[in-house]
């Protein structure tokens, strides 16, 4: 169920791990009394860290925690592009496609990853290991072409580096 579905509010809130809850309480505590809503983006990042994506059930739980209406969470989660509102693979490869990276070969990088993983942009590999996305400028323009995965930047990429990176990610995501 998507956040734009009229029945979204009825979806049962899901529970977060003790670690996530402790972090959520920490980031809420960074803001003055009554301004806890300011922590919402931090919280959505924490939720995505735990589950890999942000479900409606998770957003309903965030609304309870912050004591705000669910719609206030949905409208934020749908505005910011970093939050995955559908399930994704274990490793989400977000390739920068904007001008400066394009000048140094991001089009070729995207094609190469598509070919290598046998998926198109927006798709996930059958084994659930990788999702390929394109994103707008990540602020690494002098070090392109590049991509981000799990908040880590992989820069000045070429075919060899991509191969090594994918192997290392497969290895790390086993189990």
């Amino acid at each position, binding site marked *: 169920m998507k956040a734009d579905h009229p029945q979204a509010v009825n979806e049962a809130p899901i529970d977060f791990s003790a670690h996530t809850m402790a972090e959520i309480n920490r*980031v809420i505590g*960074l*803001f*003055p009394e009554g*301004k806890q*809503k*300011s*922590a*919402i*983006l*931090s919280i*959505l*990042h924490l939720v995505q860290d735990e589950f890999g994506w942000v479900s409606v059930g998770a957003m309903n739980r965030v609304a309870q925690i*912050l004591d705000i209406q669910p719609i*206030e969470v949905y*409208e*934020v989660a749908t*505005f*910011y*592009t*970093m*939050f995955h509102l559908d399930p994704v693979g274990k490793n989400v490869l977000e390739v920068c*496609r*904007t*001008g*400066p990276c*394009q*000048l*140094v070969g991001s089009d070729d990088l995207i094609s190469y990853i598509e070919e290598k993983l046998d998926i198109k942009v927006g798709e996930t590999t059958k084994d659930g290991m990788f999702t390929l996305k394109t*994103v*707008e*400028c*990540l*602020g*690494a*323009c*002098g*070090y*392109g072409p590049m991509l*981000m995965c799990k*908040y*880590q*930047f992989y820069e000045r990429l070429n075919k060899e580096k991509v191969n090594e990176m994918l192997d290392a990610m497969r290895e790390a995501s086993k189990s």
Partner: protein
Amino acid sequence: MSRKLLIEHAEVPGIASFETYRKHGGYASVEKALKTMSPDEVVEEVKKSGLRGRGGAGFPTGMKWSFLAKPEGVERHLVCNADESEPGTFKDRYLMEKLPHLLIEGMITSSYALGARRSYIYIRGEFMYVLRILEKAIAEAYANGMLGKNILGSGYDLDLVVTPGGGAYICGEETALLESLEGKRGNPRMKPPFPAVKGLWGNPTVVNNVESIAAVVPIVNEGGDAYAQIGIERSTGTKLISASGNLVRPGVYEIELGLSVEEFIYGDNYCRGIANGKKLKACIPGGSSVPILPHYLVTKTAAGTDRLMTYESLADGGFTSGSMLGSGGFIVFDEDQCIVRNTWNFARFYAHESCGQCSPCREGTGWMEKVLYRLEHGMGTLEDISLLEEINKKIEGNTICPLGDAAAWPVAAAIRHFRDEFEWHVKSPQEAQTRNYGLIQAPLEA
């Protein structure tokens, strides 16, 4: 080589730690300001320095500070804009990653000047690893008495928090940033009221770019007059330039304003020329929102004088033959690049990043992207080129925030300087799919 006021120690091992940073003279501006200067005296030094906002707009920082409303009993805030997302710009990330304490020091000294006791660094969510570096540095600053209660026995209290965005270019616009910091969608606010009167949570707020806040450190240490000695005319001090595109040595450079563009592109201390022995085709000198310059207007102005890295010289010729220093996002194109493809690419960026609040921007950016897609993919007509110009005029000046202008200007400039290349895409669509247009000729009068 230029003097470095900001990143001189960036590559010193361990400089991200409090101890090493302190050994290299760090936090001297906090000691000087809190122990020997009044807040107003700090503001005065910043005014004297001539520092202009390093985020892109170039508005004098001291003047911005002096607009801050100071009603009795109302809290004030300093918010650092670390939402670096203007394509071509990556200097703030470098500064924060290498020298987190420089930003924190600047935040303390600047917050003191403004009378802010709760200050925030809003950093783009994609820089989460930089946020972790800043969090660690902030904890060290608290542990060493530079943050918290009664800093250095001065009686001044300051809390500093770093918090992430979630992926939205528009949050680099200061009122959108404040909305986001309040936990909402990043829709820019109508001005007035300006943030200096009603900003974060309705309190008077100053929003400054990372580099502007960092520059306060050398300004306080050496004095505003000394800072103003560097540079030319109203472009004082040093500036971080993010160099990207087809260069031998792209990267972040700190330059004294006034350096020639020629020296910056080709000099041994800087970018060392165009990569792979190719020729320069074009340059966007200040981030993707500023007008593109064709090769013959990059190192020289239309009048034939040397083009310098200053606010004034890069703007020489206005939008007819000049551009802007902007954020210092210096994007260089070699002779093999396609201007139509690049213009389409940036139009797609702005269409993607429009917040959707104002119709001219929401509809116009998407429309321009579609038309440019047609032109780039051999389906365009000559009327499409004039259509782009029409759409442009309808966006420009008709939106709440400058994103509309930022989307319109680059398209207008690309057509102005590279019309032949656009027309070639229409007249020889098949050929345009197989090869690039190459260099354009400078007009004889130029």
